[in-house]
């Protein structure tokens, strides 16, 4: 058994092994690079969908949209999740990383995969959106890139489980694993299951694009794609909720109100979410109504129950912690005296608000069979998921960063005053952006469309002045959100480069 180097964290007393530390650092930095790529494409998308500005031409718009989806939803989020997995296993369990070599393989495969995919998109060989519904076809390298990326991510999950096993074996912790590790474990279980489905979808598609086998049935592809594509969103939800608990503890020392309840809720995600995916194909042919309602009704709502439980436990834990600090006057003194100037804390609360009140509510509504008819493929859909995956997951990850920088990178965050306003700038404007997008979608404007007015078509369309107003609000809020995102990238990268080193 090879001895690994470690240091002892002065703040927590945990042993931090350099193998884990390096992998956490490199995955997080790569994630931020992809966030930057996604943010640059967002500028073009935003200023094109804002019909009054209409910046990009059509080909460029669709290309940027494909790249935006891949860079953000796939690369930024999953690279960051790999960092979280290593953190939640090796660091929190006080253990060395199992097989750091495979950890490196994870990183290299994911980097090569994401790079290959992104390059194919930029070269114009893959104007198919990240969903790549067959028979739309991209160059076969595009699918290979996705497959490599997924294999890398599976390896990352394996290292995570290996490390948990190692920690158990070497008894580096006592009792049951911490809640954050438990949440990350649920995310990793879902990840392995869904990435395997992803492989089942993308390997035949890759072979088809290479001309080796006939095409998969178009509806089967849609069903399989979302069987994995929707469930991967549950990885994001799980990882985000784990970050919520983590942020609660780091910012105010919150203790989960009842471990049993929180852990049971995480387990509900694992048990039931794999099943809700059919809400993506509610208005498709190929499945009976009974099948669709069963899949998206009963089972999905048990996963919704899990979110409802966390929606209670997370804020409750911070309330209890703040009351313990003596803020007990009236009902809301704890809320007023909360550390709103701590970017970790404000990120936590804005993330919970956006995910639950905007993303969660619209999600449950849009996933019903009948209402889906009025929302399918309209701007309501990206409005919904910018609330979940951007305000929710992305902001939670950003909030974690302010703690990862000093604890793992050992640098003091530069310009703490700017870091303080970053969650508000990004989070609040992203909430407004999402709601404005949803409102534009209410009048029926479709998503993924370069021009909603049909200028080049045989018939023109007029959505009226209200829609233009909402698109303008979306545009302005989107610009503020992009500034907030840029501020995050600048502060994070700036801290890495010139932040004051913390010794110890």
């Amino acid at each position: 058994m090879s001895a690994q180097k470690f240091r002892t964290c002065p703040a927590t007393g945990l042993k931090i092994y350099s193998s884990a530390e390096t992998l956490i650092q490199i995955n997080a930095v790569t994630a931020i690079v992809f966030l930057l790529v996604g943010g640059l494409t967002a500028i073009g998308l935003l200023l094109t969908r804002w019909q009054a500005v209409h910046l990009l031409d059509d080909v460029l718009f669709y290309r940027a949209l494909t790249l935006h989806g891949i860079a953000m939803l796939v690369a930024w989020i999953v690279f960051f999740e790999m960092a979280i997995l290593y953190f939640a296993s090796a660091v929190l369990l006080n253990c060395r990383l199992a097989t750091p070599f495979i950890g490196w393989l994870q990183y290299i495969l994911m980097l090569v995969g994401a790079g290959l995919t992104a390059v194919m998109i930029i070269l114009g060989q893959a104007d198919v959106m990240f969903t790549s519904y067959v028979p739309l076809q991209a160059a076969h390298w595009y699918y290979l890139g996705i497959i490599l990326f997924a294999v890398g991510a599976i390896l990352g999950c394996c290292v995570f489980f290996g490390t948990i096993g190692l920690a158990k074996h070497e008894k580096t912790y006592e009792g049951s694993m911490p809640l954050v590790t438990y949440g990350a474990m649920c995310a990793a279980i879902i990840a392995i299951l869904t990435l395997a489905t992803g492989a089942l979808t993308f390997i035949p598609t890759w072979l088809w694009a290479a001309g080796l086998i006939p095409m998969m049935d178009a509806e089967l592809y849609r069903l399989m794609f979302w069987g994995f594509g929707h469930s991967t969103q549950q990885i994001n939800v799980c990882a985000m909720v784990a970050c919520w608990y983590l942020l609660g503890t780091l910012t105010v020392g919150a203790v989960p109100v009842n471990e049993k309840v929180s852990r049971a809720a995480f387990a509900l995600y694992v048990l039931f979410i794999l099943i809700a995916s059919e809400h993506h194909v509610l208005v498709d042919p190929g499945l009976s109504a009974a099948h669709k309602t069963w899949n998206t009704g009963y089972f999905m709502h048990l996963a919704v129950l899990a979110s409802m439980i966390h929606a209670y436990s997370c804020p409750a834990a911070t309330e209890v912690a703040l009351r313990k600090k003596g803020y007990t006057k009236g009902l809301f003194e704890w809320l007023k005296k909360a550390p709103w100037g701590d970017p970790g804390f404000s990120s936590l609360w804005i993330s919970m608000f956006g995910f639950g009140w905007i993303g969660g509510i619209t999600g449950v509504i849009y996933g019903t069979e009948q209402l889906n008819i009025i929302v399918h493929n309209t701007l309501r859909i990206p409005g919904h998921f910018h609330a979940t995956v951007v305000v929710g997951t992305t902001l939670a990850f950003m909030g974690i960063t302010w703690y990862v920088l000093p604890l793992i990178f050992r640098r003091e965050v530069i310009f703490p005053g700017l870091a303080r306003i970053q969650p508000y700038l990004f989070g609040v404007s992203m909430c407004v952006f999402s709601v404005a997008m949803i409102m534009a979608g209410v009048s029926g404007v479709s998503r993924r469309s370069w021009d909603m007015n049909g200028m080049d078509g045989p018939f023109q369309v007029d959505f009226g002045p209200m829609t233009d107003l909402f698109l303008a609000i979306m545009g302005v809020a989107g610009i503020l959100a992009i500034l907030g995102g840029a501020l995050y990238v600048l502060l994070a990268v700036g801290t890495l480069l010139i932040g004051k080193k913390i010794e110890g």
Partner: protein
Amino acid sequence: MSIQAIKPGWWQKPLDGQEKIWLSIAFVWCLAITIIMPWWHVVGDHNMSGEYHKITGGDFSMLTDQFIEKYQVGMDEGIPVVVPPANSDIFLRGAQWEWDPVLKLKAGSTYRLHLSSIDVNHGVSIQPVNMNFQAVPGYDSILTITPTTKGEYRIICNEFCGAGHHAMIGKLIVE
């Protein structure tokens, strides 16, 4: 602390009162929304029939051509206009990047609308009533529709279908 390992026995800690109340509310609410969906399916007016069968693009195209030949009354922007009789089977064909034919329907009459694509996925977004369906190659998706409001509607493709996606706009007339 959620970042520290916890002692065994955590699963024996009872729920406190507020927690129980919240859990019950959440559970009942989830049950309610679970029941609403099938219930709407039974009592609601707007549902997909769920009727479909598999069909090749060639066969669907042939059926659409026959349908057009039978009921065509004119042309609009180069797209045939058809006036089918009430209670009949009507066809809407999606192809990169055109919807055809232009359907002229009678308010209050019922039709069986056959929907498919002969190349890639397309989206059928009927505006301004805002009803959206998916046209999938290889599948004939059948919707039973009864138009109620007279007027001119647009059929906007809302599934990305290639470079000309945004130009794929059709027309539907209800008289």
